[in-house]
């Protein structure tokens, strides 16, 4: 059989994920109490205890070498473990199976498995673990908060409820450099339209006391955030990778067609809530919005997340007490948002149809978390498509690790296989990664090409040569 002769490739996958606190079961025989969450749940109790114990031991052991920075990951042939201590004594551990190639053997022997243990990057999956925690915190607050509110039982309950669903949405095979950055894509906009949006947001916040913060997005790109950067970062992640894709299916049909018919006049009904009630006119509708937690000067505040969407424009309204909210905002908000939406459409027409980008690059600015990628296609809930080979993505990740090691500005140029050149540039807090595919290009030409890119795409920022 022909197919049986082929190699089979396995992408990295989640083996297990657990949360524990060593102080909850310090004595022998009570080890199980340490475990707050364990995925997969059907693992036998003793094995759970063994695995947690092992992690505990490794962290404890490495602490003796460097008390402030214990081990972050453990590399083994078959898998890789990531340790993260988000709050004192609370540990999150994620175990990822290394990618592998299964080579069939003749004569009916079991196939040989070759683990590619160097293929996955600590930075990428370390970032994934941190994001898991941030996402939990966004919707539940800290572990400590749950402990205060209802002790271990409540925390276990909350972890179970949250991670049971969340882990299913993890797609470890498509994690890459962008997960390390956790950036925000900003919508480019002229000053005047931006000021109009400002004006709109201010008016809405002024007239509705309940609204504490507002974020304004268009086409999955951020325009304005009243939330602080770190909160916005995780909220943005949630909105663009989870909430919006879930609600976009009905609109998908018209989304990418260049000539979306403009319906003038009857604009009143374009707005709808993405969280909370789907139909305001429904008397039975429940005005229940998800709660989120954001940081303040002194701890956390609990808010409700309200997402209101008009065509491609989304306005996030987060309010303290949403029950009072009624349809009274709706029409006014919709009209205003619709106006702005039209502005965008005009802008879009000016900029012309989406062309195949001339350069394949990823840009990230640590200062404002701005990210821009011409490598990634639209991110959806399930997959993150890239237009380049995973090998190249790995090189990008490697360059990023190198950058992280030193403070100074530097530039790294790599000649990859198959005629590709990969250039990484770091200037102050900005990083730029370019992938060039030019046959027989030499170093000087590549350098020139990157300069050209900087001059055209980044002429308004300060990039050291």
């Amino acid at each position: 059989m022909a197919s049986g002769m082929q190699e089979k490739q396995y992408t990295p996958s989640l083996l297990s994920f657990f949360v524990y606190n060593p102080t909850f079961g310090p004595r022998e025989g009570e080890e199980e109490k340490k475990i707050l969450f364990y995925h997969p749940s059907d693992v036998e109790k003793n094995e759970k205890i063994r695995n947690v114990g092992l992690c505990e031991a490794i962290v404890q052991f490495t602490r003796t070498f460097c008390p402030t920075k214990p081990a972050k990951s453990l590399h083994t042939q078959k898998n890789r473990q990531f340790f993260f201590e988000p709050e004192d004594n609370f540990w999150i551990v994620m175990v990822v199976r290394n990618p592998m190639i299964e080579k069939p053997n003749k004569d009916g022997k079991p196939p040989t498995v070759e683990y590619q243990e160097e293929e996955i990057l600590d930075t990428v999956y370390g970032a994934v673990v941190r994001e898991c925690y941030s996402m939990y915190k966004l919707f539940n607050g800290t572990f400590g908060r749950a402990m205060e509110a209802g002790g271990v039982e409540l925390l276990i309950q909350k972890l179970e409820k949250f991670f049971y669903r969340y882990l299913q949405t993890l797609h470890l095979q498509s994690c890459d450099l962008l997960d390390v950055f956790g950036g925000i894509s900003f919508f480019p906009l002229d000053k005047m339209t931006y000021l109009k949006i400002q004006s709109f947001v201010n008016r809405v916040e002024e007239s509705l006391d309940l609204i504490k913060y507002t974020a304004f997005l268009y086409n999955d790109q951020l325009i304005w955030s009243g939330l602080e950067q770190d909160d916005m970062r995780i909220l943005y992640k949630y909105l663009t990778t989870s909430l919006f894709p879930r609600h976009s299916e009905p609109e998908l049909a018209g989304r990418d067609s260049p000539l979306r018919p403009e319906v003038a006049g009857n604009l009143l009904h374009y707005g709808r809530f993405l969280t909370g009630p789907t139909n305001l006119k429904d008397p039975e509708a429940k005005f229940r919005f998800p709660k989120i937690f954001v940081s303040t000067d002194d701890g956390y505040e609990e808010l409700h997340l309200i997402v209101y969407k008009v065509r491609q424009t989304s306005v996030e309204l987060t309010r303290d007490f949403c029950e009072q909210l009624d349809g009274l905002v709706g029409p006014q908000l919709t009209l205003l948002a619709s106006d702005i939406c039209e502005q965008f459409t005009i802008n879009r027409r000016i900029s012309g149809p989406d062309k195949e980008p001339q350069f394949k690059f990823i840009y990230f600015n640590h200062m404002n978390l701005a990210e821009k990628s011409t490598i990634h296609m639209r991110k959806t809930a399930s997959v993150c498509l890239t237009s380049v080979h995973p090998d190249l993505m790995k090189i990008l990740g490697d360059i990023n690790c190198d950058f992280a090691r030193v403070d100074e500005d530097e530039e790294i140029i790599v000649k990859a296989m198959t005629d590709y050149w990969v250039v990484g540039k770091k200037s102050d807090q900005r990083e730029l990664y370019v992938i060039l595919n030019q046959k027989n290009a030499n170093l000087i030409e590549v350098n020139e090409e990157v300069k050209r890119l900087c001059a055209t795409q980044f002429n308004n920022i300060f990039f050291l040569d």
Partner: protein
Amino acid sequence: MGEEHYLELCESPVQFEHASNVNNVFFDEANKQVFAVRSGGATGVVVKGPEDKSSVAFRMDDKGEVKCIKFSIGNKILAVQRTSKSVDFINFIPDYPHTEFTQECKTKNASVLGFCWTNWNEIVFITDQGIEFYQVFPDKRSLKLLKSQSINVNWYQYCPETAVILLSTTVQGNILQPFAFRNGTMSKMSKFEIELPVVPKPAKLSLSERDIAMATIYGQLFVMYLKHHSRTANSPSAEVVLYHLPREGACKKSHVLKLNTTGKFALNIVDNLVVVHHQSSQTSLIFDIKLKDPDCAVNTHQPVLPARSIHPYRIPLSGPAVVPSQPPVPCQLYSSSWSVFQPDIIISASEGYLWYLQVKLPPTVNLLQDKGKLMDFLLRRRDCKMVILSVCSQILEGGEKGSLPVVATVFDKLNQVYKEYLEAEQTYTVAMESGPSRGSAAQKRPVRTQAVIDQSDMYTHVLSSFTERKGVSHKFIIAVLMEYIRSLNQFQITVQHYLYELVIKTLVQHNLFYMLHQFLQYHVLSDSKPLACLLLSLESTYPPAHQLSLDMLKRLSTANDEIVEVLLSKQQVLGALRFIRSVGGHDNVSARKFLDAAQQTGDQMLFYTVFRSFQQRNQRLRGSPNFNPGEHCEEHVVHFKQLFGDQALMKPSTV
């Protein structure tokens, strides 16, 4: 409630001897002079003008009762009408003979209704049979008829500002014929008919002189007709009908002012507002013909404000006879002895006072709730600036809910006027720079009225104190500042640096750095060197400000030196060197600055690199790697030798 009287009489009225059986009082609208003629002039004529220097006193022979007395413009020639046939003239030009001379009207059997000076030596006689236009020769003591026109005249009105005489003709008197005078020419304008509320049968004179007034409003000449209500016609209340009288073309009925009451009225024009005094209620109404009333039909206007009386006035007792303890006497307002003249004059002949009517703006602020309308109203007034600024402060500090849209409307209205002025100013400047071209000699420098509220006014009087006010939420402060910046941008007005500074200061005060970052990211705060420097100063509290500042300097493209300084201060010597090379300024920079910075880092290899780089530059520029004495790099050469030895120095290349 505070002050509500929005009209007042001027503080220092023109005082004259009150009318009596021995003292006749005349008023000349052209020169705004009051003539007090005692005993036909024999015991003296006292002329009081708006200013003291235009006051004249003289004597003339009593040749009968004076019917009308007026100076020509500039007090050159006095004209006195004593009979219905002729007008007498007296020269007031020094060195000219003072003897009177007389001119009879040319039309036979006509009687002179009156006369008007249209120039210092040009006069128009209005008779019941037409008008006669004369030039006066004071030296020859004679007049020459320039032009005449026969037409039946019931009565006439004169508007000195525009030199237009309006004649009432026909039996009913409602066909009005205007004539315009200018530099010795008389031109007949198109006549028009006033629609009477009731057409009398048989026909008789139905349009009274008292119900017609002429005045310029917003630079346009209007004939105002006080249309009384009539029981027969279906008009419940009186109204003022405005007829626009253009220099050329037909006269058109243009505005209707609804008085919503009946009775006796008088009209004034103050600051382009039509003031209607109502005697029985002792109140006045004001109308602004430019204020659009959305509730009314086209060009129908309701009063801008509720009716209020003129501010109570006390007659100041002056002169040597005044006893200090004696209180000023309250003056009876809306007295039946008042005479009202255009545009803004009220005369009480029996008391001997001439007042100018004035509009007081501060009380209007509380009477007009709609702030947008209030702004429209204030922006067209003469002394509006401080009132407008106080309204701005008031709406910002009132802290009422939902005031942002109001704030936005007000800002937009202010900036609309501001922008129009800036544009006019620019057009003027361009025209001046391109030289006085033919035809456009009439280019006048645009007048900056008080309604032009610029950014510095807003900053000084409104925004700076508002942002420092305690108890105002910072959210609201920022929203207001952004609203102002939005409005300026909407009108394409360049925002001044100090406004950005105010925004930044407010954001920094409340630790809203992320907000600041986003504003900069979208270039809401426009690039400038001062702003970049301000950002640099924030670096210690907000590190990303460094990057923002450098980006801004880069975009300015005129700040390369500053970028080098910033990089050197961060000890990024190589970065600075690479940067200056990339912008082509490498040949001109001071080597000393870079070498100093390199030496300070204590990094020997860095110092070596920088040193060699400049040696290479010297070689390239001057053919020798040595530094010029003027560059003051001696100590660096010594330092280099100490570190790396003489032999490491670059040797002059031999060709």
